[in-house]
């Protein structure tokens, strides 16, 4: 279940980065249009992976409920911490991107 949360969090974080304003604020650089597009695609793909993991883990009914719960929690955490601790959030994003797949590959997950 933690994997679903991490993929969902990373998905929304990257979707946030795919917006020019936030990208500039967070990474202090002007992104190319191609970069923004690939971020957008990447973000949505991560959310799809989160959906797939949630349904695989708990079935459609419970999986969707859990997915929505962790997505809402993750994105709220991101948005309200963004003005205060942007670097911490980027760190959390990096950790999610690494830990999420690790948890999926581990046999117990």
């Amino acid at each position, binding site marked *: 279940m933690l994997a679903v949360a991490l993929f969902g969090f990373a998905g929304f974080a990257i979707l946030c980065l795919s917006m020019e304003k936030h990208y500039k604020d967070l990474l202090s650089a002007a992104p190319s249009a191609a970069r923004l597009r690939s971020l957008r695609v990447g973000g949505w793909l991560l959310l799809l992976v989160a959906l797939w993991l949630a349904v695989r883990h708990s079935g459609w*009914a*419970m999986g969707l409920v859990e997915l929505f*719960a962790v997505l809402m929690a993750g994105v709220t955490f991101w*948005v309200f911490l963004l*003005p205060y601790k942007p670097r911490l959030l980027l760190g959390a994003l990096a950790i999610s991107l690494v830990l999420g797949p690790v948890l999926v590959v581990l046999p117990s997950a």
Partner: protein
Amino acid sequence: MKEGFRQAMAWLHTWTGLIFGWLLFAIFLTGTLSYFKEEITHWAQPEVPTRALDPAASLALAQTYLQEHAPNAGSWFIRLPEAREPALSVGWRAEGAGRRGFIDKTLDPATGEEVQARETRGGDFFYRFHFQLEMPHPWGRWLSTFAAFIMLLGLVTGIITHKKIFKEFFTFRPGKGQRSWLDGHNAIGVLVLPFHLMISYSSLVIFMSMVMPASIIASYGDNTRGFFNDLFGAPREVKATGVAAPMLPLPTLYEKVQEQAPGTRLGWIEVQNPGDQNARVRFTRHAGDRIAHMRGGGWTYDGVNGELQGASTIEATPMLISGGMYGLHMGVFAGPWLRWLYFFFGLAGTAVIGTGLVLWLGKRQLKHAKSGSQPGELRLVEVLNIASMSGLLLGVAAFFWANRLLPVGLEGRAGWEVNSFFLLWGLSVLHAMLRPGRRAWAEQLGLAALLWGTLPLLNQLTTGHGLVHSIAAGDWAMAGVDLTALGSGLFLAWAAMKMWRPPVVAAKRAPKAAKAASANLIESEVN
């Protein structure tokens, strides 16, 4: 034309939000507390011991107790202990008595002895309040259902009014006065929107037979009971024969249920005509075993020979949808971490309403800031804002304090707990009327912080179940209430400190032209 529509929706959002905001804030906050109804009840009745769960043994004890104390009752009810609520509850209806003649007792699930727990409504008070508002039936239900409808309306009109729902999806700009409140209002509203929509829509579904009974009346006339009997299966009341017959031990029947559905958890167990030739035992499923809440499901056995009389599982699609909405709203199925998320989303809903009320007033107060005087209607809204938010927090705290301070043997004790809730809430209205706005906020939030923050200390001093004991014993329901109170106290202390200082002037943004432009922007967006 499109702008006209948006403005009309903004107007609706603004005014329905104001009129119902105070009530909705109370409904959302007490509803949020209801996600921990069992835990709060456990906290409120520390006398009920927590034991290892053993359904079969508990059933045997309950049967022995009822056999001894209510051998001639028309029916028995047993509720088994579960992880979240340790009590074994039994109840019965005295023979020949109507609905009022119901007696219920709490037993120790390990010994079967009656537990003398303090009289309290516990978490059930907040649960009942959030849809009945302590008003006579059915007015409270109607009012709260109407409020739920206004909430749904507020969400839809809010989405329409919000011009940059995607562009500002990730936007929160703190430290900028009204702008920050609006950002916060929008962000919590949008990011947790699935929850908000689910909770307000499902409340309408839960009460749909009350709100929209036309289709039922068209077919059943006044006989609404007939509709529910057709829907959920009539409670097949079997007449007692008057011939006594020994009943099978309930654990034996419990084993049969486990054969039918291995690992199933049970909710209520009802025994009709105990001790009679025609005894019937009905087992219902625990509501938390699946998301959709299905009424009327379960297994009925002949209490004398143990034959399965009927098993009903209703799987019609409309039932599944309405049961699903019911289940999602109640969240009984949620395990610990999902329950905590439910709790936080409930707080988010409360915050959306609260920030909305603050915005309404803030925008209008700005207009009068220069003249220094405030029109009476704004002062009225200010008083109601303070009393409905910080005052409610005081009232809830008063309930918990009364639970620990009122003498255990006091006559009508449970009622006095409720009275303390309303008393402090009422006093907060008076206080808000007597003190200037910002000062009233600071004082009420400060007192609330004190009451919440020291609740664990009070628990430690008045019972043997303070944090030191509960954490050591692994009683996380008890410790959780204490720790949540402590956390709320700290948060409220922070809020009180903010209000104690002079207000942050929002005019920090440097260039004058930009300032004027953004002020106009706010003007057009905040309604």
